[in-house]
Protein backbone atom coordinates (compact mmCIF):
# COMPACT_ATOMS: atom_id res chain seq x y z
CA UNK A 1 0.00 0.00 0.00
CA UNK A 2 1.17 3.48 -0.74
CA UNK A 3 3.79 4.10 1.81
CA UNK A 4 3.73 5.83 5.08
CA UNK A 5 7.41 6.32 5.83
CA UNK A 6 6.98 6.11 9.58
CA UNK A 7 3.90 4.46 10.97
CA UNK A 8 2.66 4.13 14.54
CA UNK A 9 0.15 1.33 14.90
CA UNK A 10 -2.06 1.21 18.01
CA UNK A 11 0.87 2.24 20.16
CA UNK A 12 0.24 1.94 23.90
CA UNK A 13 2.34 2.62 26.96
CA UNK A 14 1.33 2.44 30.59
CA UNK A 15 3.32 3.44 33.65
CA UNK A 16 1.53 1.62 36.45
CA UNK A 17 -2.05 2.93 36.39
CA UNK A 18 -1.15 5.90 34.21
CA UNK A 19 -1.80 5.48 30.50
CA UNK A 20 0.90 7.62 28.88
CA UNK A 21 0.09 6.63 25.29
CA UNK A 22 -3.41 5.43 24.56
CA UNK A 23 -3.56 3.39 21.33
CA UNK A 24 -2.05 5.94 19.01
CA UNK A 25 -2.01 5.41 15.25
CA UNK A 26 -0.26 7.82 12.92
CA UNK A 27 1.24 7.83 9.43
CA UNK A 28 4.06 10.16 8.46
CA UNK A 29 5.37 10.73 4.94
CA UNK A 30 9.04 10.94 3.98
CA UNK A 31 10.41 14.49 4.19
CA UNK A 32 7.54 15.80 6.30
CA UNK A 33 8.05 18.18 9.18
CA UNK A 34 5.68 16.92 11.86
CA UNK A 35 5.13 18.60 15.22
CA UNK A 36 3.87 16.78 18.28
CA UNK A 37 2.05 19.52 20.15
CA UNK A 38 0.27 19.28 23.46
CA UNK A 39 0.30 20.23 27.13
CA UNK A 40 2.83 18.56 29.42
CA UNK A 41 1.87 15.01 30.31
CA UNK A 42 -0.14 14.59 27.10
CA UNK A 43 2.09 11.79 25.82
CA UNK A 44 3.95 13.63 23.07
CA UNK A 45 7.43 13.13 24.54
CA UNK A 46 6.69 9.55 25.54
CA UNK A 47 5.67 8.82 21.96
CA UNK A 48 8.90 10.40 20.71
CA UNK A 49 10.97 8.31 23.14
CA UNK A 50 9.12 5.20 21.99
CA UNK A 51 10.12 6.01 18.40
CA UNK A 52 13.73 6.57 19.55
CA UNK A 53 13.67 3.23 21.38
CA UNK A 54 14.17 4.38 24.95
CA UNK A 55 10.65 3.44 25.95
CA UNK A 56 9.31 0.02 25.16
CA UNK A 57 5.62 0.13 24.27
CA UNK A 58 3.21 -2.27 26.02
CA UNK A 59 1.40 -2.85 22.76
CA UNK A 60 1.40 -1.72 19.16
CA UNK A 61 4.16 -1.21 16.66
CA UNK A 62 6.50 1.39 15.23
CA UNK A 63 7.30 0.84 11.55
CA UNK A 64 9.97 2.68 9.60
CA UNK A 65 9.97 1.92 5.87
CA UNK A 66 7.68 -1.01 6.60
CA UNK A 67 10.16 -2.56 9.06
CA UNK A 68 9.20 -2.92 12.72
CA UNK A 69 11.51 -1.08 15.11
CA UNK A 70 10.13 -2.43 18.37
CA UNK A 71 12.79 -5.12 18.77
CA UNK A 72 15.61 -2.93 17.46
CA UNK A 73 17.80 -1.28 20.09
CA UNK A 74 18.26 2.52 19.86
CA UNK A 75 21.83 2.30 18.53
CA UNK A 76 20.67 0.29 15.52
CA UNK A 77 17.61 2.37 14.64
CA UNK A 78 19.53 4.93 12.59
CA UNK A 79 17.58 7.79 14.12
CA UNK A 80 18.97 11.22 14.93
CA UNK A 81 17.83 13.14 17.97
CA UNK A 82 18.27 16.57 19.51
CA UNK A 83 17.37 16.62 23.19
CA UNK A 84 15.77 19.24 25.40
CA UNK A 85 18.88 19.46 27.55
CA UNK A 86 22.36 20.04 26.24
CA UNK A 87 23.82 16.64 25.44
CA UNK A 88 27.11 17.44 23.74
CA UNK A 89 29.91 15.24 25.03
CA UNK A 90 31.75 17.63 27.36
CA UNK A 91 35.26 16.20 26.84
CA UNK A 92 35.12 16.41 23.04
CA UNK A 93 35.46 19.46 20.81
CA UNK A 94 32.69 20.58 18.46
CA UNK A 95 34.29 18.75 15.53
CA UNK A 96 34.86 15.59 17.60
CA UNK A 97 31.25 15.64 18.76
CA UNK A 98 30.02 15.76 15.18
CA UNK A 99 32.50 13.04 14.21
CA UNK A 100 31.44 10.76 17.10
CA UNK A 101 28.58 8.90 15.34
CA UNK A 102 30.81 8.36 12.30
CA UNK A 103 33.73 7.11 14.42
CA UNK A 104 31.41 4.69 16.18
CA UNK A 105 30.41 3.45 12.73
CA UNK A 106 34.10 3.10 11.82
CA UNK A 107 33.83 5.18 8.68
CA UNK A 108 37.08 6.02 6.84
CA UNK A 109 38.96 9.04 8.16
CA UNK A 110 38.69 11.12 4.99
CA UNK A 111 34.92 10.60 4.86
CA UNK A 112 34.57 11.67 8.52
CA UNK A 113 36.64 14.79 7.92
CA UNK A 114 34.56 15.75 4.87
CA UNK A 115 31.27 15.12 6.66
CA UNK A 116 32.30 17.16 9.72
CA UNK A 117 33.20 20.03 7.42
CA UNK A 118 29.89 19.76 5.59
CA UNK A 119 27.91 19.70 8.86
CA UNK A 120 29.79 22.65 10.39
CA UNK A 121 29.02 24.52 7.21
CA UNK A 122 25.35 23.55 7.40
CA UNK A 123 24.91 24.98 10.91
CA UNK A 124 27.28 27.92 10.25
CA UNK A 125 29.68 27.01 13.07
CA UNK A 126 32.92 26.38 11.17
CA UNK A 127 34.91 28.91 13.27
CA UNK A 128 33.93 27.03 16.46
CA UNK A 129 35.20 23.61 15.38
CA UNK A 130 37.91 23.31 18.04
CA UNK A 131 35.91 24.75 20.95
CA UNK A 132 34.67 22.64 23.84
CA UNK A 133 30.90 22.62 24.49
CA UNK A 134 31.36 24.62 27.72
CA UNK A 135 32.74 27.48 25.62
CA UNK A 136 29.59 27.72 23.49
CA UNK A 137 26.31 29.52 24.11
CA UNK A 138 23.12 27.48 24.55
CA UNK A 139 22.00 28.21 21.01
CA UNK A 140 25.35 27.20 19.56
CA UNK A 141 25.31 23.98 21.58
CA UNK A 142 21.92 23.03 20.16
CA UNK A 143 23.14 23.76 16.63
CA UNK A 144 26.12 21.46 17.18
CA UNK A 145 23.73 18.83 18.57
CA UNK A 146 21.70 19.22 15.37
CA UNK A 147 24.85 18.80 13.25
CA UNK A 148 25.81 15.69 15.23
CA UNK A 149 22.33 14.20 14.81
CA UNK A 150 22.41 14.79 11.05
CA UNK A 151 26.05 13.73 10.45
CA UNK A 152 25.16 10.08 9.79
CA UNK A 153 22.23 10.89 7.48
CA UNK A 154 19.62 9.38 9.80
CA UNK A 155 16.36 8.10 8.37
CA UNK A 156 14.46 10.40 10.67
CA UNK A 157 15.33 13.30 12.98
CA UNK A 158 13.62 13.63 16.37
CA UNK A 159 13.69 16.88 18.31
CA UNK A 160 12.47 17.02 21.90
CA UNK A 161 11.70 20.68 22.78
CA UNK A 162 15.22 21.62 21.66
CA UNK A 163 14.71 25.36 22.09
CA UNK A 164 12.88 25.46 25.42
CA UNK A 165 16.00 26.52 27.33
CA UNK A 166 16.68 29.49 25.03
CA UNK A 167 15.31 33.01 25.17
CA UNK A 168 12.69 34.21 22.69
CA UNK A 169 14.91 36.07 20.23
CA UNK A 170 17.42 33.24 19.99
CA UNK A 171 14.58 30.76 19.67
CA UNK A 172 13.25 32.55 16.60
CA UNK A 173 16.72 32.64 15.01
CA UNK A 174 17.19 28.93 15.48
CA UNK A 175 13.65 28.15 14.31
CA UNK A 176 14.54 29.86 11.04
CA UNK A 177 17.73 27.82 10.91
CA UNK A 178 15.84 24.57 11.50
CA UNK A 179 13.44 25.48 8.68
CA UNK A 180 16.37 26.13 6.36
CA UNK A 181 18.08 22.87 7.30
CA UNK A 182 14.84 20.95 6.72
CA UNK A 183 14.62 22.45 3.26
CA UNK A 184 18.29 21.84 2.43
CA UNK A 185 18.51 18.27 3.69
CA UNK A 186 14.95 17.07 3.11
CA UNK A 187 15.16 14.99 6.29
CA UNK A 188 11.95 13.77 7.93
CA UNK A 189 11.55 15.61 11.23
CA UNK A 190 9.38 14.94 14.26
CA UNK A 191 9.49 17.94 16.56
CA UNK A 192 8.01 17.96 20.06
CA UNK A 193 6.89 21.27 21.54
CA UNK A 194 4.27 22.71 23.85
CA UNK A 195 4.50 26.07 22.10
CA UNK A 196 1.67 26.40 19.56
CA UNK A 197 3.34 29.33 17.83
CA UNK A 198 6.46 27.25 17.23
CA UNK A 199 4.31 24.41 15.90
CA UNK A 200 2.39 26.68 13.52
CA UNK A 201 5.57 28.29 12.26
CA UNK A 202 7.63 25.17 11.62
CA UNK A 203 5.49 22.25 10.68
CA UNK A 204 3.86 20.78 7.61
CA UNK A 205 1.42 18.98 9.87
CA UNK A 206 0.66 19.23 13.57
CA UNK A 207 -0.30 16.25 15.72
CA UNK A 208 -2.16 17.58 18.74
CA UNK A 209 -1.90 15.36 21.81
CA UNK A 210 -4.25 15.31 24.77
CA UNK A 211 -4.40 12.81 27.66
CA UNK A 212 -2.19 10.27 25.88
CA UNK A 213 -4.28 10.29 22.72
CA UNK A 214 -4.24 12.18 19.43
CA UNK A 215 -6.84 14.94 19.47
CA UNK A 216 -6.39 16.09 15.89
CA UNK A 217 -3.91 15.82 13.02
CA UNK A 218 -3.67 18.43 10.31
CA UNK A 219 -1.97 21.49 8.93
CA UNK A 220 -1.82 24.57 11.12
CA UNK A 221 -4.70 26.05 9.12
CA UNK A 222 -6.82 22.92 9.61
CA UNK A 223 -6.35 23.08 13.35
CA UNK A 224 -6.87 26.83 13.60
CA UNK A 225 -9.88 27.14 11.33
CA UNK A 226 -11.55 23.78 11.79
CA UNK A 227 -10.82 22.40 15.24
CA UNK A 228 -12.60 19.12 15.88
CA UNK A 229 -12.98 19.80 19.58
CA UNK A 230 -13.12 22.57 22.16
CA UNK A 231 -9.71 21.34 23.32
CA UNK A 232 -8.15 22.07 19.92
CA UNK A 233 -10.01 25.36 19.64
CA UNK A 234 -8.67 26.40 23.04
CA UNK A 235 -5.12 25.12 22.57
CA UNK A 236 -4.39 26.61 19.15
CA UNK A 237 -4.83 30.37 19.34
CA UNK A 238 -7.46 32.23 21.32
CA UNK A 239 -11.12 31.61 20.75
CA UNK A 240 -14.54 32.65 21.94
CA UNK A 241 -16.77 29.66 22.51
CA UNK A 242 -20.48 30.36 22.62
CA UNK A 243 -23.12 27.77 23.45
CA UNK A 244 -25.68 27.80 20.65
CA UNK A 245 -28.87 25.93 19.98
CA UNK A 246 -29.52 24.55 16.51
CA UNK A 247 -33.12 24.71 15.30
CA UNK A 248 -33.94 23.40 11.83
CA UNK A 249 -30.30 23.78 10.88
CA UNK A 250 -29.82 27.36 12.07
CA UNK A 251 -27.80 28.18 15.18
CA UNK A 252 -29.36 30.49 17.73
CA UNK A 253 -27.30 32.50 20.23
CA UNK A 254 -28.29 32.39 23.92
CA UNK A 255 -30.21 35.66 23.50
CA UNK A 256 -32.23 34.15 20.64
CA UNK A 257 -30.40 35.81 17.72
CA UNK A 258 -30.62 33.58 14.66
CA UNK A 259 -27.40 33.14 12.67
CA UNK A 260 -27.72 32.82 8.88
CA UNK A 261 -25.27 29.97 8.67
CA UNK A 262 -27.12 26.81 7.68
CA UNK A 263 -25.78 23.60 9.24
CA UNK A 264 -27.37 20.61 7.55
CA UNK A 265 -28.29 17.54 9.62
CA UNK A 266 -27.50 19.15 12.94
CA UNK A 267 -29.82 19.79 15.85
CA UNK A 268 -29.61 20.62 19.51
CA UNK A 269 -26.96 22.17 21.73
CA UNK A 270 -23.60 22.87 20.08
CA UNK A 271 -20.57 25.08 20.55
CA UNK A 272 -19.76 27.93 18.28
CA UNK A 273 -16.20 29.15 17.82
CA UNK A 274 -15.40 32.73 16.93
CA UNK A 275 -11.77 33.87 16.76
CA UNK A 276 -11.21 37.31 18.36
CA UNK A 277 -10.01 38.70 15.01
CA UNK A 278 -13.26 37.57 13.32
CA UNK A 279 -15.23 39.92 15.61
CA UNK A 280 -15.47 43.67 15.12
CA UNK A 281 -17.23 46.58 16.78
CA UNK A 282 -20.25 47.75 14.78
CA UNK A 283 -23.48 49.71 14.82
CA UNK A 284 -25.54 46.55 14.76
CA UNK A 285 -25.04 42.93 15.84
CA UNK A 286 -24.84 41.52 19.34
CA UNK A 287 -25.28 44.33 21.87
CA UNK A 288 -22.38 44.38 24.34
CA UNK A 289 -20.77 46.54 26.97
CA UNK A 290 -17.00 47.22 26.81
CA UNK A 291 -15.26 46.00 29.95
CA UNK A 292 -11.64 46.29 28.85
CA UNK A 293 -9.57 47.98 26.16
CA UNK A 294 -5.87 47.37 25.52
CA UNK A 295 -3.97 49.29 22.89
CA UNK A 296 -1.29 47.00 21.37
CA UNK A 297 -0.02 49.17 18.54
CA UNK A 298 -1.15 47.29 15.45
CA UNK A 299 -4.29 45.96 17.11
CA UNK A 300 -6.68 47.02 19.81
CA UNK A 301 -7.86 44.22 22.09
CA UNK A 302 -11.29 44.64 23.68
CA UNK A 303 -13.05 42.62 26.32
CA UNK A 304 -16.81 42.91 26.00
CA UNK A 305 -19.75 41.49 27.95
CA UNK A 306 -22.81 40.21 26.14
CA UNK A 307 -26.39 40.50 27.24
CA UNK A 308 -26.29 36.89 28.50
CA UNK A 309 -23.26 37.70 30.67
CA UNK A 310 -20.44 36.08 28.68
CA UNK A 311 -17.06 37.78 28.25
CA UNK A 312 -15.85 37.84 24.64
CA UNK A 313 -12.47 38.85 23.32
CA UNK A 314 -12.36 41.11 20.26
CA UNK A 315 -9.25 42.11 18.29
CA UNK A 316 -9.55 44.89 15.75
CA UNK A 317 -6.87 46.17 13.42
CA UNK A 318 -6.03 49.74 14.39
CA UNK A 319 -6.72 51.22 10.94
CA UNK A 320 -10.00 49.28 10.64
CA UNK A 321 -11.41 50.66 13.83
CA UNK A 322 -13.44 53.54 12.51
CA UNK A 323 -15.57 53.07 15.60
CA UNK A 324 -13.81 54.30 18.73
CA UNK A 325 -15.09 52.75 21.92
CA UNK A 326 -13.96 52.90 25.52
CA UNK A 327 -14.62 51.04 28.74
CA UNK A 328 -18.23 51.41 29.81
CA UNK A 329 -19.54 52.18 26.30
CA UNK A 330 -22.40 50.14 24.95
CA UNK A 331 -21.82 49.06 21.35
CA UNK A 332 -22.51 46.07 19.14
CA UNK A 333 -20.23 43.26 18.04
CA UNK A 334 -20.57 42.09 14.51
CA UNK A 335 -19.15 39.12 12.60
CA UNK A 336 -19.51 37.42 9.28
CA UNK A 337 -22.03 34.66 9.96
CA UNK A 338 -20.22 32.34 7.57
CA UNK A 339 -17.11 32.56 9.75
CA UNK A 340 -19.09 31.20 12.68
CA UNK A 341 -17.75 27.67 13.05
CA UNK A 342 -19.69 24.99 14.87
CA UNK A 343 -17.37 22.55 16.67
CA UNK A 344 -18.40 19.08 15.56
CA UNK A 345 -17.98 17.22 18.87
Amino acid sequence: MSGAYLELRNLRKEFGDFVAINNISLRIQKGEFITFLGPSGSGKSTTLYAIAGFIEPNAGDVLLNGRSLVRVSPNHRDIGMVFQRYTLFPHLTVAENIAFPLRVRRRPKAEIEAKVKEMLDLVHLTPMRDRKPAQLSGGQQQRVALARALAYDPQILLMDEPLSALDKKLREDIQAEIERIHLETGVTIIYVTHDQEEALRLSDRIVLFNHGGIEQVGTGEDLYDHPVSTFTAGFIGNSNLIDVHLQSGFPHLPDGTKLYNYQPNREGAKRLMLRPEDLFLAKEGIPVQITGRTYLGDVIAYMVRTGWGQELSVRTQRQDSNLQAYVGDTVCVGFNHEKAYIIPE
Partner: protein
Amino acid sequence: MLLDFSQLGWWRIALCAVAGVAVVFLLAPLCLLIALSFDSSQWLQFPPPGWTLQWYREVLADPNWLNSFLTSVELGIVVTLASVFLGLLAGFALARGNFPGREMLRGFFLTPMIMPSIVLGIALYATFLRLHLAGTFLGFVLAHLVLALPFSIVAITSALEQTDKSLEDAAMLCGASLWEARVRVILPAIRHGIFSAAIFSFLTSWDEVVVAIFMASPGLQTLPVRMLGEVRQNLSPDIAVVSSLLVLGTILLMGLTALFNKDSKR
Protein backbone atom coordinates in the same frame (compact mmCIF):
# COMPACT_ATOMS: atom_id res chain seq x y z
CA MET B 1 24.73 39.98 56.62
CA LEU B 2 24.93 39.27 60.30
CA LEU B 3 28.47 37.99 60.12
CA ASP B 4 29.87 40.20 57.40
CA PHE B 5 33.60 40.35 58.01
CA SER B 6 33.92 44.07 57.21
CA GLN B 7 31.14 44.94 59.69
CA LEU B 8 32.70 43.21 62.66
CA GLY B 9 34.91 46.10 63.85
CA TRP B 10 37.17 45.12 66.73
CA TRP B 11 35.82 41.60 66.71
CA ARG B 12 37.85 41.07 63.55
CA ILE B 13 41.03 41.01 65.61
CA ALA B 14 39.57 38.45 67.99
CA LEU B 15 38.40 36.35 65.07
CA CYS B 16 41.84 36.41 63.44
CA ALA B 17 43.43 35.50 66.77
CA VAL B 18 41.15 32.48 67.21
CA ALA B 19 41.84 31.37 63.66
CA GLY B 20 45.56 31.80 64.24
CA VAL B 21 45.46 29.70 67.42
CA ALA B 22 43.51 26.98 65.62
CA VAL B 23 46.08 26.84 62.81
CA VAL B 24 48.96 26.68 65.27
CA PHE B 25 47.18 23.96 67.25
CA LEU B 26 46.72 21.87 64.10
CA LEU B 27 50.12 22.43 62.54
CA ALA B 28 52.47 22.72 65.54
CA PRO B 29 52.80 18.96 66.16
CA LEU B 30 53.64 18.40 62.50
CA CYS B 31 56.24 21.16 62.54
CA LEU B 32 57.73 19.74 65.73
CA LEU B 33 57.94 16.31 64.10
CA ILE B 34 59.67 17.68 61.02
CA ALA B 35 62.11 19.60 63.20
CA LEU B 36 62.85 16.43 65.17
CA SER B 37 63.68 14.53 61.99
CA PHE B 38 66.69 16.83 61.51
CA ASP B 39 67.56 16.68 65.24
CA SER B 40 71.15 15.56 65.90
CA SER B 41 70.15 14.08 69.28
CA GLN B 42 69.29 10.42 69.26
CA TRP B 43 66.69 10.89 71.98
CA LEU B 44 64.42 13.32 70.18
CA GLN B 45 65.62 16.18 72.33
CA PHE B 46 63.88 19.53 71.89
CA PRO B 47 65.01 22.15 71.10
CA PRO B 48 67.54 20.22 68.99
CA PRO B 49 71.17 20.56 70.07
CA GLY B 50 72.20 20.46 66.39
CA TRP B 51 71.01 19.57 62.89
CA THR B 52 71.79 16.50 60.82
CA LEU B 53 70.67 14.47 57.78
CA GLN B 54 72.01 11.30 59.35
CA TRP B 55 68.60 9.80 60.16
CA TYR B 56 67.39 10.33 56.60
CA ARG B 57 70.45 8.44 55.31
CA GLU B 58 69.77 5.63 57.75
CA VAL B 59 66.08 5.29 56.94
CA LEU B 60 66.60 5.41 53.18
CA ALA B 61 69.29 2.73 53.46
CA ASP B 62 67.19 0.44 55.66
CA PRO B 63 65.64 -2.36 53.55
CA ASN B 64 62.90 -2.93 56.14
CA TRP B 65 61.52 0.58 55.75
CA LEU B 66 61.81 0.31 51.98
CA ASN B 67 59.98 -3.02 52.00
CA SER B 68 57.10 -1.67 54.10
CA PHE B 69 56.94 1.37 51.90
CA LEU B 70 56.73 -0.77 48.75
CA THR B 71 54.14 -3.04 50.38
CA SER B 72 52.00 -0.02 51.22
CA VAL B 73 52.34 1.39 47.69
CA GLU B 74 51.55 -1.93 46.00
CA LEU B 75 48.64 -2.54 48.30
CA GLY B 76 47.37 1.00 47.78
CA ILE B 77 47.52 0.69 44.00
CA VAL B 78 45.81 -2.70 43.84
CA VAL B 79 43.12 -1.57 46.30
CA THR B 80 42.60 1.64 44.30
CA LEU B 81 42.21 -0.20 40.99
CA ALA B 82 39.80 -2.75 42.45
CA SER B 83 37.88 -0.10 44.36
CA VAL B 84 37.40 2.16 41.33
CA PHE B 85 36.37 -0.76 39.13
CA LEU B 86 33.83 -2.11 41.62
CA GLY B 87 32.77 1.46 42.46
CA LEU B 88 31.90 2.02 38.80
CA LEU B 89 29.81 -1.13 38.63
CA ALA B 90 28.01 -0.28 41.87
CA GLY B 91 27.67 3.37 40.82
CA PHE B 92 25.93 2.49 37.55
CA ALA B 93 23.60 0.15 39.42
CA LEU B 94 22.72 2.77 42.05
CA ALA B 95 22.53 5.80 39.76
CA ARG B 96 20.98 4.24 36.66
CA GLY B 97 19.38 1.05 37.87
CA ASN B 98 15.78 0.75 38.87
CA PHE B 99 15.24 -2.28 41.05
CA PRO B 100 13.58 -3.02 44.38
CA GLY B 101 15.89 -2.56 47.36
CA ARG B 102 18.13 -0.08 45.61
CA GLU B 103 18.05 2.42 48.47
CA MET B 104 18.73 -0.35 50.98
CA LEU B 105 21.69 -1.49 48.95
CA ARG B 106 22.99 2.08 48.86
CA GLY B 107 22.84 2.23 52.66
CA PHE B 108 24.40 -1.21 53.00
CA PHE B 109 27.37 -0.21 50.83
CA LEU B 110 28.15 2.58 53.27
CA THR B 111 28.19 0.46 56.45
CA PRO B 112 31.99 -0.03 56.53
CA MET B 113 32.25 3.76 56.97
CA ILE B 114 30.39 3.69 60.28
CA MET B 115 31.47 0.24 61.50
CA PRO B 116 34.24 0.53 64.15
CA SER B 117 37.37 -0.64 62.35
CA ILE B 118 38.48 -2.75 65.30
CA VAL B 119 35.31 -4.84 64.93
CA LEU B 120 35.89 -5.11 61.20
CA GLY B 121 39.51 -6.09 61.82
CA ILE B 122 38.59 -8.89 64.21
CA ALA B 123 35.80 -10.15 61.98
CA LEU B 124 37.98 -10.18 58.88
CA TYR B 125 40.82 -11.83 60.76
CA ALA B 126 38.56 -14.61 62.04
CA THR B 127 37.14 -15.19 58.58
CA PHE B 128 40.47 -15.04 56.77
CA LEU B 129 42.05 -17.52 59.20
CA ARG B 130 39.49 -20.06 58.09
CA LEU B 131 40.02 -19.22 54.42
CA HIS B 132 43.82 -19.27 54.79
CA LEU B 133 43.94 -15.65 53.69
CA ALA B 134 45.33 -14.17 56.89
CA GLY B 135 48.78 -12.70 56.38
CA THR B 136 48.57 -12.90 52.59
CA PHE B 137 48.65 -10.01 50.16
CA LEU B 138 45.24 -11.01 48.80
CA GLY B 139 43.79 -10.93 52.30
CA PHE B 140 45.24 -7.48 52.80
CA VAL B 141 43.74 -6.26 49.52
CA LEU B 142 40.30 -7.65 50.36
CA ALA B 143 40.34 -6.14 53.86
CA HIS B 144 41.31 -2.69 52.65
CA LEU B 145 38.88 -2.93 49.77
CA VAL B 146 36.04 -3.25 52.29
CA LEU B 147 37.14 0.07 53.81
CA ALA B 148 37.91 1.88 50.56
CA LEU B 149 34.86 0.84 48.55
CA PRO B 150 32.30 3.09 50.29
CA PHE B 151 34.31 6.22 49.41
CA SER B 152 34.62 5.08 45.82
CA ILE B 153 30.92 4.25 45.54
CA VAL B 154 29.86 7.60 47.03
CA ALA B 155 32.16 9.62 44.74
CA ILE B 156 31.24 7.76 41.56
CA THR B 157 27.50 7.51 42.27
CA SER B 158 27.21 11.22 42.92
CA ALA B 159 29.22 12.03 39.79
CA LEU B 160 26.91 9.77 37.77
CA GLU B 161 23.81 11.32 39.29
CA GLN B 162 25.05 14.75 38.28
CA THR B 163 25.59 13.56 34.71
CA ASP B 164 22.44 13.77 32.61
CA LYS B 165 21.17 10.41 31.42
CA SER B 166 20.34 12.06 28.07
CA LEU B 167 24.09 12.10 27.46
CA GLU B 168 24.02 8.30 27.43
CA ASP B 169 20.86 8.29 25.28
CA ALA B 170 22.44 10.71 22.82
CA ALA B 171 25.53 8.51 22.49
CA MET B 172 23.35 5.45 21.89
CA LEU B 173 21.31 7.14 19.17
CA CYS B 174 24.65 8.09 17.59
CA GLY B 175 25.16 4.34 17.18
CA ALA B 176 27.14 3.42 20.29
CA SER B 177 26.14 0.32 22.25
CA LEU B 178 25.24 0.86 25.90
CA TRP B 179 28.72 -0.07 27.13
CA GLU B 180 30.43 1.81 24.34
CA ALA B 181 28.41 4.89 25.32
CA ARG B 182 29.40 4.45 28.94
CA VAL B 183 33.09 3.93 28.26
CA ARG B 184 33.51 6.58 25.56
CA VAL B 185 31.16 9.25 26.87
CA ILE B 186 30.15 8.73 30.49
CA LEU B 187 33.57 7.78 31.89
CA PRO B 188 35.24 10.94 30.54
CA ALA B 189 32.27 12.99 31.77
CA ILE B 190 32.66 11.67 35.34
CA ARG B 191 36.46 11.67 35.39
CA HIS B 192 36.47 13.97 38.43
CA GLY B 193 34.41 11.49 40.39
CA ILE B 194 36.70 8.66 39.30
CA PHE B 195 39.76 10.67 40.29
CA SER B 196 38.34 11.44 43.75
CA ALA B 197 37.37 7.80 44.15
CA ALA B 198 40.95 6.79 43.34
CA ILE B 199 42.52 9.34 45.71
CA PHE B 200 40.19 8.43 48.58
CA SER B 201 40.66 4.71 48.01
CA PHE B 202 44.42 5.03 47.95
CA LEU B 203 44.54 7.20 51.07
CA THR B 204 42.15 4.89 52.93
CA SER B 205 44.50 1.98 52.35
CA TRP B 206 47.65 4.07 52.75
CA ASP B 207 47.09 5.29 56.31
CA GLU B 208 44.91 2.48 57.61
CA VAL B 209 46.43 0.84 60.66
CA VAL B 210 43.79 -0.93 62.76
CA VAL B 211 42.66 -3.53 60.25
CA ALA B 212 46.20 -3.71 58.86
CA ILE B 213 47.53 -4.91 62.24
CA PHE B 214 45.27 -7.96 61.99
CA MET B 215 46.22 -8.63 58.37
CA ALA B 216 49.97 -8.14 58.75
CA SER B 217 52.50 -10.93 59.14
CA PRO B 218 56.18 -10.53 59.97
CA GLY B 219 57.06 -10.62 56.27
CA LEU B 220 54.15 -8.45 55.16
CA GLN B 221 53.87 -5.14 56.91
CA THR B 222 52.53 -1.84 55.66
CA LEU B 223 54.28 1.37 56.54
CA PRO B 224 51.83 2.46 59.27
CA VAL B 225 52.04 -0.97 60.92
CA ARG B 226 55.85 -0.84 60.96
CA MET B 227 55.75 2.72 62.29
CA LEU B 228 53.45 1.74 65.13
CA GLY B 229 55.68 -1.21 65.98
CA GLU B 230 58.74 1.01 65.84
CA VAL B 231 57.21 3.61 68.15
CA ARG B 232 56.32 0.98 70.68
CA GLN B 233 59.71 -0.74 70.65
CA ASN B 234 62.17 2.13 70.44
CA LEU B 235 61.38 5.76 70.01
CA SER B 236 64.02 6.75 67.48
CA PRO B 237 64.47 9.67 65.09
CA ASP B 238 63.64 7.18 62.30
CA ILE B 239 59.98 7.65 63.09
CA ALA B 240 60.26 11.41 62.73
CA VAL B 241 61.99 10.93 59.38
CA VAL B 242 59.38 8.53 58.00
CA SER B 243 56.58 10.79 59.24
CA SER B 244 58.16 13.82 57.61
CA LEU B 245 58.49 11.94 54.33
CA LEU B 246 54.82 10.99 54.55
CA VAL B 247 53.86 14.62 55.12
CA LEU B 248 55.90 15.55 52.05
CA GLY B 249 54.20 12.81 50.01
CA THR B 250 50.76 14.00 51.10
CA ILE B 251 51.53 17.58 50.11
CA LEU B 252 52.67 16.38 46.68
CA LEU B 253 49.50 14.33 46.26
CA MET B 254 47.32 17.31 47.20
CA GLY B 255 49.21 19.48 44.73
CA LEU B 256 48.61 16.89 42.03
CA THR B 257 44.88 16.87 42.82
CA ALA B 258 44.68 20.65 42.67
CA LEU B 259 46.52 20.61 39.35
CA PHE B 260 44.13 18.00 37.92
CA ASN B 261 41.06 19.92 39.01
CA LYS B 262 42.38 23.18 37.64
CA ASP B 263 43.27 21.57 34.34
CA SER B 264 39.89 19.94 33.83
CA LYS B 265 37.97 23.13 34.59
CA ARG B 266 39.00 24.50 31.21
